[in-house]
């Protein structure tokens, strides 16, 4: 895995992400500054980490989505390159138009920082091949604006095309309003683009990868990516 982690001013999860990428792939990711206009040669996955790019000014992810480096990220995605956006990264991908919809203020207006349960809806994507479809994973979440909203046509298309890959559920995988804490439409926690090479998700799988820190349910995502890219190389 030759990962490039994009560093925007105001993000704070880039080192967690880099640590996990190194842990799983054995290779240090390139840290790419937002003002750069090219990705390192040979990059096979771009990661937009979490945090508060530009202090969440205007709208979460709005200014980062227009940063110089995003031209290169867009071109990379258009060629089929894998792009992973976590938390603020998901918000940036939506603002950049690489994923549909928008992440709005949590329904109960609270910033929620705790472990949540996600049902993996499909295992046939490069991002989820390390899991079984229907498997429930426990990963941390930390956001105030993760309430996924899109118009009804877009939601119908996402559901119809099986592009919802993670959903907030109870620990047993059942849909329940109290476990969909941010009010997201259809309890959507993560989606892919039509081609399936761009994933955005609000929770942080990169923070549950080491036994010393608790559950390791997030590891499957990175392990799956590593195997997928290793096979492709």
């Amino acid at each position, binding site marked *: 895995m030759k990962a490039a982690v994009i560093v925007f001013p105001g993000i704070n999860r880039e080192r967690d992400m880099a640590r996990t990428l190194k842990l799983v792939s054995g290779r240090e990711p390139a840290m790419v500054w937002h003002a750069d206009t090219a990705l390192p040669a040979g990059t096979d996955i771009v990661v937009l980490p979490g945090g508060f790019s530009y202090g969440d000014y205007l709208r979460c992810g*709005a200014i980062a989505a227009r940063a110089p480096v995003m031209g290169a990220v867009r071109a990379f995605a258009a060629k089929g390159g894998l792009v992973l956006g976590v938390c603020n990264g998901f918000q940036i991908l939506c603002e950049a138009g690489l994923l*549909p919809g*928008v992440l709005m203020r*949590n329904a109960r207006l609270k910033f929620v920082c705790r472990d949540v349960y996600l049902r993996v809806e499909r295992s046939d994507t490069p991002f989820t091949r390390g899991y079984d479809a229907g498997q429930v994973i426990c990963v941390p979440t930390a956001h105030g604006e993760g309430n996924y909203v*899109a118009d009804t046509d877009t939601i119908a298309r996402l559901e119809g095309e099986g592009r919802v890959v993670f959903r907030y559920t109870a620990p047993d995988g059942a849909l329940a309003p109290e476990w969909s804490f941010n009010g997201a439409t259809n309890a959507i926690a993560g989606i892919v683009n039509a081609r399936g090479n761009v994933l955005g998700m609000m929770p942080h799988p990169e923070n549950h990868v080491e036994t010393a820190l608790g559950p390791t349910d997030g590891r499957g995502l990175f392990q799956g990516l590593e195997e997928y890219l290793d096979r492709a190389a």
Partner: protein
Amino acid sequence: MKAQVTVTLKSGILDPQGKAIEGALKSLGVDGIASVRQGKVFDIEIADGDRAGIEAKLREAAEKLLANTVIENYRIQING
């Protein structure tokens, strides 16, 4: 020349902040308010140009950055 771009949430989009403000107004005893929706106003000073050119520029600014047209509408007002 001065202009204003006003960005508001499209109808049908849930506005939890507006709802909270609505509740706060009620608890302050300000009655007769049916609902509140929160938006943004951008006060913009224009360096130069004719009215049509300025409007086109502001439209571009709104479309490219100031509004997320998935959930928001915008309105342009040019003063003077």
